[in-house]
């Protein structure tokens, strides 16, 4: 087990964003959290990632040494250390995950520097290699990400996130703002990288097709509760809960 959440609850005023949510994640496993806007899925991601405190319940993370850490009990410094060395986060909007004033190569390289890498030549070489892996031209290393398209920026954010070889990656609607043609390419790229690196991923998405392509397992959320969960193809091909049936029936077959 790499991540375990037990009985998470969080209310914003009268709105119960999380209402008794429990889930487990295993190393190398991709878990998709699906649901509509307001289902609580993004709140869940923030709580799992230690960016928000739940009113009740707790999140346990088994770190690289095998020690179990309670996320809510970590100090700011400990949490920052996790983000530098073991965790990654891919934002829906790449401009939130990138530093727009820093060059493309710098965006990738500075994560390596933060993780302790000091040799300039190595950092530059590694940054170039990661640009290649996400199908960006390393010749554009010194360009500003502002000159990149949305799809390119998203791929750059993925390179920036994965360059430090995290064990656990949180993704919030990673294909959300992109054109459909760009989405397919990005999903395929993510799929390949996740498999090659053996990453554990919590993916929040409202895109059922993306969940089917990437996830081993699906959690369906509604009104802050998990209404159904299981093996991806079982949940999508044999949905039991009324809400899951509605979600699946709303997808145009492709």
């Amino acid at each position, binding site marked *: 087990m790499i991540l375990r959440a037990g009985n998470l609850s969080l209310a914003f005023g009268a709105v119960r964003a999380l209402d008794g949510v429990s889930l487990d994640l*295993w190393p190398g496993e991709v878990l998709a959290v699906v649901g509509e806007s307001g289902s609580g899925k993004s709140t869940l991601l923030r709580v799992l990632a230690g960016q928000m405190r739940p009113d009740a319940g707790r999140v346990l993370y088994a770190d690289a040494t095998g020690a179990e850490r309670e996320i809510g009990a970590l100090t700011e410094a400990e949490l920052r250390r996790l983000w530098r060395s073991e965790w990654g986060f891919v934002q829906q909007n790449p401009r939130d995950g990138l530093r727009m004033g820093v060059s493309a190569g710098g965006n990738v390289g500075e994560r390596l520097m933060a993780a302790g890498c000091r040799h300039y030549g190595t950092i530059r070489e590694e940054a170039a290699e990661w640009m290649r892996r996400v199908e960006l031209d390393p010749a554009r290393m010194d360009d500003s990400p502002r000159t990149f398209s949305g799809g390119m920026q998203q791929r750059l954010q993925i390179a920036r996130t994965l360059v430090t070889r995290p064990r656990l990656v949180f993704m919030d609607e990673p294909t959300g703002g992109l054109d459909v043609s760009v989405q*397919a390419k990005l999903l*395929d790229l993510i799929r390949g990288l996740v498999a090659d690196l053996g990453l554990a991923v919590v993916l929040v998405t409202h895109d059922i097709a993306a969940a*089917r*392509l990437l996830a081993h397992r699906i959690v369906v959320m509604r009104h802050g509760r998990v209404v159904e969960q*299981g*093996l991806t193809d079982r949940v999508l*091909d*044999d949905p039991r809960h009324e809400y899951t049936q*509605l979600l699946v029936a709303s997808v145009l077959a492709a």
Partner: protein
Amino acid sequence: MNDIALRVEGLAKGFTLHLQGGASFPVLRDEALEVRAGECVALAGPSGAGKSTLMRCLYGNYGSDDGRIRLRHRGALLDLAAADPRLVREVRRETLGYVSQFLRVIPRVSAREVVAEPLAERGTPRAEALARAEALLTRLNLPRRLHDLPPATFSGGEQQRLNLARGFAPGYPLLLLDEPTASLDAANREVVVALIAEAKQAGAAIIGIFHDIEVRDRVADRLHEVRPLPDAA
């Protein structure tokens, strides 16, 4: 008996359609089936009787409402109907293969890689997995120029052959075949008949739905009748 590959007991499966006013209908009830290593069993019964539903339950693609699906995995019988998702994935990786009629295309992944993928997941070195994929695709007469292309634009028959190659490549001890020759010409039908015979020879247990009676009678050791349930309404 340790040559039992699959033993289904008391299997029940129905559907409740919440979007259609909560209509419920049972499809399978008290289904029982036993298949031994090296044996091929063909599911028979009229269209709509639940043959494909049974296959999907056996693969864990449909959840069962009741009963047990015991299959031999890592030397022991385990109940797939009660297995958690991680265990189902392990069983699918090592033990249980499924050739469906449809190919779910992954953008940009070549035909050869689609076939090699399940082998690589079992730990076969990449070069060896790709070579085996190549050999099977060639045997199924898929033109070499297509091997490096993503199968999105393939014809129905080409996609079916790709599915077959993907299903037969790893040598699963238990293999489910849903209409494996539906879109194939005579020559490729012969290849499939030979692949099934070889898999049986190697000790695989095979369960199939075959609309082609001639193929069915050549490959199946016996029939298992799936009977439509009397209408609940």
